């Protein structure tokens, strides 16, 4: 049965939603719709847009925003907070291990091939110690809820998870439009995220850097779908937003081209994939990238956040082993559980998946953004058959999970408050210490019954509240 986050089983309102409920009743559906239009106009005007790959049409589509906040109680959050930090720590420990002695492989807990044959594995990183031994400085963990106490991790994002700008903007819009809701101080603020991010980035400056580190945010450019977020974060941190053409490497240091000549850079928060970072080290045919960047990194002239090769830890085939990592590196039991996952790369897994494909959610191991996935119960039998053929052709490239009854959250429908499925992505910062703001991005599937919340697939976003008590 689907868990409704707003209601107890008997239909009464759960106490953490009391304030939201009061506000909905007070404002009325028409009133809320009026304010929704207002909110949309504000988003459009300030240009918060999200480009969708491969769909044509408007390259600067507005991501739908739903007014009704998603609420966590203090108790719920305390547990999430511990579980998220635990996971972020274990993932970084695994990355360090994978690029050093690989104890976890020697212990036989993870198959060697899964690491060494992995596309995200970067042999160039072997034996290198990134500052603070941190590989993934911003860990975005996608969490779904299936019951009052069941929080499960859908996937990890260790490279450059996006969406935090929506967390900040959604709260900003809500505060601007409904100051009364926040005046009682019930909701934990999230607006210190940029300051915490900057502090985290400065902490991992190269040991040789003795000054206040110069941090930049490296974006592929204004055509990238997350460009808005890049400029937004750079702005709030007061750092330069650079493109690859702005940087060059000389004498093992990275420099940016300014109107007064070259200026040295210490830390690069890069929002560019490994492949396109440096044509000398990675894809030689890349026209993006800064030649020599990786060499400067290994020489200790600059820190890259996240480290090249950090994507190994968020691979969907590796995901299965995260609970093992938590036990192995931290000696703790996982606080957040994994979703049972069948790997088509194994014989038994493949047999099970092919037999039950109509009931499962199947995904490409290296896919992201909700592309190339199959939701068995909602697909036609032709689509299921076609997907099965794809799996047979390359079993190792696919995993499958049970179709989860994602919890639902109240969402503004045309004539009433309706229940829609949602997930949650918090952003854990890892520097010389771990930091986590009480909040994150709630994505909601706006179509009735839909389980796909990705913004690239028509999902929307909403403000996420963590109550103070």
């Amino acid at each position, binding site marked *: 049965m689907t868990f409704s986050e707003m209601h107890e089983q008997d239909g009464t309102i759960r106490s953490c939603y009391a304030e939201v409920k009061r506000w909905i009743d007070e404002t009325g559906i028409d009133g809320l719709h009026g304010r929704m239009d207002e909110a949309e106009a504000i988003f459009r*005007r*300030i240009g918060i847009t999200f480009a969708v790959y491969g769909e044509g049409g408007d390259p600067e589509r507005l991501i739908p925003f739903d007014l009704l906040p998603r609420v966590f109680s203090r108790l719920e959050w305390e547990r999430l907070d511990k579980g998220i930090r635990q996971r972020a720590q274990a993932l970084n420990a695994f990355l360090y291990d994978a690029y050093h002695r690989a104890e976890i492989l020697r212990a036989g807990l993870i198959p060697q091939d899964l690491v060494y044959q992995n596309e995200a594995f970067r042999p160039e990183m072997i034996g290198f110690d990134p500052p603070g031994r941190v590989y993934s400085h911003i860990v975005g963990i996608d969490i779904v809820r299936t019951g009052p106490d069941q929080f499960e991790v859908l996937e990890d994002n260790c490279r450059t998870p996006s969406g935090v700008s929506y967390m900040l903007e959604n709260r900003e819009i809500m505060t601007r439009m409904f100051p009364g809701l926040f005046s009682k101080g019930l909701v934990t603020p999230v607006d210190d995220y940029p300051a915490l991010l900057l502090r985290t980035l400065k902490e991992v400056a190269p040991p040789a850097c003795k000054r206040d580190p110069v941090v930049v945010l490296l974006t592929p450019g*204004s055509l990238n779908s997350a460009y808005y977020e890049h*400029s937004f974060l750079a702005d709030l941190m007061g750092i330069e937003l650079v493109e690859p053409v*702005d940087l060059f490497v000389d004498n093992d240091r990275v420099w940016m081209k*300014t109107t007064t000549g070259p200026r040295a850079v210490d830390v690069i928060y890069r929002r560019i994939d490994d492949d396109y970072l440096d044509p000398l080290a990675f894809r030689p045919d890349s026209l993006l990238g800064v030649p020599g960047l990786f060499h400067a990194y290994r020489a200790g002239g600059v820190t890259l956040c996240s480290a090249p090769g950090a994507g190994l830890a968020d691979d969907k085939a590796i995901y299965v082993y995260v609970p093992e990592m938590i036990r192995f590196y931290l000696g703790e039991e996982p606080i957040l559980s994994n979703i049972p996952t069948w790997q088509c790369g194994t014989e038994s897994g493949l047999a099970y998946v092919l037999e039950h494909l109509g009931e499962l959610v199947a995904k490409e191991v290296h896919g992201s953004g909700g592309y190339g996935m199959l939701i068995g119960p909602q697909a036609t039998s032709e689509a299921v058959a076609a997907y099965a053929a794809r799996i047979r052709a390359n079993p190792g490239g696919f995993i499958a999970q049970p179709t989860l009854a994602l919890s639902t959250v109240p969402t503004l429908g045309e004539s009433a408050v309706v229940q829609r499925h949602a997930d949650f992505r918090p952003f854990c910062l890892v520097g010389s210490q771990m930091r986590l703001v009480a909040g994150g991005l709630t994505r909601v599937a706006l179509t009735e019954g839909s389980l796909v919340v990705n913004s690239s697939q028509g999902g929307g976003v909403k403000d996420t509240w963590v109550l103070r008590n």
Partner: protein
Amino acid sequence: MLSRTAANLFWMARHLERAESTARLITMGQRMAVLPGSAYRDEWRSVLRVTGCEPFHTRSGPVTEADVVRILLLDSENPASIHSCLVRARANGRSVRTKLTQEMWEALNLSWRRFEGYGLDEACQELPALIDWVKTRASVFRGAAETGMLRHEGHDFMRIGGAIERAQMTLRLLDVKYYVLLPETDVVGGGRDHYQWSSVLHALSGIRAYHHVYGGTYSPAHISDFLMVNRAFPRSVAYCVDQMRWHLERLAQEHGVLATCHKTVDEIFEFLLDGQDGAIFQRGLHESVQQCLKLTNRLANEIAESYYF
């Protein structure tokens, strides 16, 4: 500041200025086209020529208003059309968003798609309103910059870009229309009259200002003086050069470096100073205009070099 940021601010201002100047030129064309004998003089052609867009007119025969609206307002293939300029200004702004204020960005962001898929007939019918709209957008942007933008070097680059584009538009107009102001020789297309002269002033929205400075009569010497060396009229070449000098000077102080562009801007300044009191007219208007065009082009290149664009 990143060189790319400076370059984008510079070009953003140029594109916006260009869109606005072109809008003013179209207004001039409309005014001229209703005067007697206009078909013979092919006034619309001169509008295309001033903007360097004559090659986009491939049909033979005189240029019509619809041709100009298509080429200069709507055509997304023509990099100098108002449509293209707005799209480019916005693209420049988007890639340096953090250096713009919210209001500046909103002004840019609201403008850029206005002419996408706009029908030609529709545009011709609504032309005066569309032209006003373009001018208003430019004013809103400038106003937002005036009262909200941090006076860092980015502001200087933006102002310099705008001033160069504005000076060049005035120069190109004089380059194409100089024969109207010639004292002696026969003029192409028959008798000169004050309509012709006033058209040039109209194109630069300077007719009232002209009368304030020179009284009620038109003379070629006064008009060329007004548009070239008058330092109070914001669309005169001299005024724009003063602006460039002032902002380049600020950059020099901030960076502690004098570059070649500083020498060049002084050279243009001196050249115009020597042309005061009618001297520029005596010296030969056409040659002076050519010289200034050459120097401002050089200046733009040197700025790009000096600041690593």
